[in-house]
């Protein structure tokens, strides 16, 4: 994308205003990744701001022609992990933050999720952050393992093992959480 390349070049020459192009192009994606990772909108917003600020300061180190999206993502991921370690940031109920609905409400902008998906959302929030990150990248953005490795700066083997652990954990709890629902439905059926 020529516009981006040009913006990067000008930023590297100190043109601060040109950085708005970078912000515009990457803000949404970074925010969503941060939100899905932290389940905390305030922290996600803060993380994105901090990512851009750090990126600006370090942009002279950015190698032209490289993937600035991956570069920004790496800054974001490092920030999120650092903050998690420093502050032990708790995940917030994402359902409330993004206006989750079970479909019965009238709020047009609400995200309609059934119980199963809500449960899954909570399970993701309970994952350790270094497992949550690859899950988010894998499923929200469809990243390959190699792309996750490139973006996070982790080794490919590390990505595989973390994602594998995450998926095992999710699968175990997801199955367990789904069973009672099925049983309950059957029991209700018999009662009637």
């Amino acid at each position, binding site marked *: 994308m020529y516009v981006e*390349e040009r913006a990067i*070049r000008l930023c590297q020459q100190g043109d601060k205003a040109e*950085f708005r192009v970078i912000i515009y192009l990457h*803000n*949404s994606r970074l925010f969503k990744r941060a939100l*899905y990772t932290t389940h905390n909108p305030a922290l996600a917003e803060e993380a*994105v701001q901090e990512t*851009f600020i750090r990126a600006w300061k370090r942009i*002279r180190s950015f190698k032209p022609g490289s993937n600035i999206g991956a570069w920004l993502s790496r800054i974001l991921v490092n920030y999120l992990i650092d903050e998690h370690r420093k502050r032990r940031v708790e995940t917030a109920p994402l359902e409330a933050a993004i206006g989750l609905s079970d479909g019965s409400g009238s709020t047009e902008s609400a995200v309609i999720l059934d119980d199963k998906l809500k449960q899954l959302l909570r399970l993701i929030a309970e994952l350790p952050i270094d497992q949550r990150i690859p899950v988010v990248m894998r499923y929200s953005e469809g990243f390959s393992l190699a792309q996750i490795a490139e973006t996070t700066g982790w080794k490919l083997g590390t990505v595989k093992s973390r994602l594998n652990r995450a998926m095992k954990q*999710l699968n175990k709890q997801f199955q367990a959480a789904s069973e009672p629902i099925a049983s309950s439905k059957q029991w209700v059926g018999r009662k009637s």
Partner: protein
Amino acid sequence: MTDHVNGGRLDDALNQLFDRLESNVVAPRLTYLSIRDRMGEQERPSVRAQFVELLGSVFGKWRFPVTKSQIGTITAVVSIAVVVAVYVMVSGSDSDDGGVAPAVDPTTTPVPTTVPDPTATTIVKSTAIPIDPEIAAIVGEAKLKTFPAALKEGAPELSEEEVIDLWTGFIADTYWVESTDYVLSFCGAGYGSTPIATFKAELEHFGWNWEVIGPTKFPARPWNSARVILDGIEAPGVGELAPPSEDGRLSTESLPDQPSRGPNNPLVFENSDCVPETNASAEPTPLPALPESSGQNVREIPEDLTNGAASTDAWRAYLSDGHMIAVDFADGELKEIDPSLTRYLSQIHKLTGTVDLLLCGDGRFHWMGTVPVVIADYSTRGWTGGQDGGWEISQTGENSFNLQLIPDDSRVILESVKFPVEIENGRFLSTLINTGGGTDLIFEVREASGCP
């Protein structure tokens, strides 16, 4: 990848979950202005980082274990690298910038500067089409420019940087360009003819100047794929220029993932014989008739509201009287807007005259008096852009307000047209939703009587 872990069920659920979230979660608008003060100074890459990068560039493709011959090569290269690194450190200590030059794209290579029939390309100040004084006031005096000899055919090859600089300087502030080839003139917005270019190029519109940002070559024709970027930002959906039709008319072409744009889209480029829509003595372009489905948007402004003495409550009552159009611009997408209104607005190429500024901040409307403003071209482009250029309704912060524009022709209340403004140095800066913070459309508030 994950199927071996859990089968398809969890996979499906995860995909479903993120699909739902993706289509509903909207990122808060982060503006450049909002973080500018915190951005601080740039860090310079450390010498160590450069050294590591240098080594990386040398060994990047190698994997250990290596052969004996490779070891020999590595040893030799490391020796050279150490010498280079020492040189960098020594020379860097004496230079103003710490010895670290801004990164430069190493792939930049000289490019040919072929232009279409350069001998016939001339730049003249047009006398055929009167310059709208309002526009002239904005763009400044028309300038007579000489086509850069270095860009003419036969001139020595230039680097891409040099080509861009030359074209940029050539186009900037130029009011009229003629050539035997296509002259792209901006006629759709009511201007006499604002030149853009006569060649294939990527253009960037900063303020009122057109800046060439990326030509690598200038084929004579077909004229195509010049991307116009509004206000410094590549807005989604900003059309690309299609090759000219037989009559020489150039129009925008929708990007693949964007809805089609009609022929009345303001982003229409025509060749040099386009007829100016306005001039100093002409009547303002009449507003097109509203489509019936947008009838609710036609409303007279009561005189008692426009005499400057209207109370805040009166305006609030008026504006909240069911006439507000539900417009939700979020993350570059336009939602919940009557498409007929969009079409209607797309036909408004220019609104001139007095515009009343009504600022509502902190949930209160403040009657700010009458401010002469020209809303033209890319204002309407912003309104009509649909997904790419809508104005955003937003309260962006302490110094941010929703700005409402009421055109002089009070037949139409563009209550849907709101956009945030931020106050900086006493000026209201509009912010296009797509700019992520911009300083593109500046409203000078000359009178602020009535503002508490």
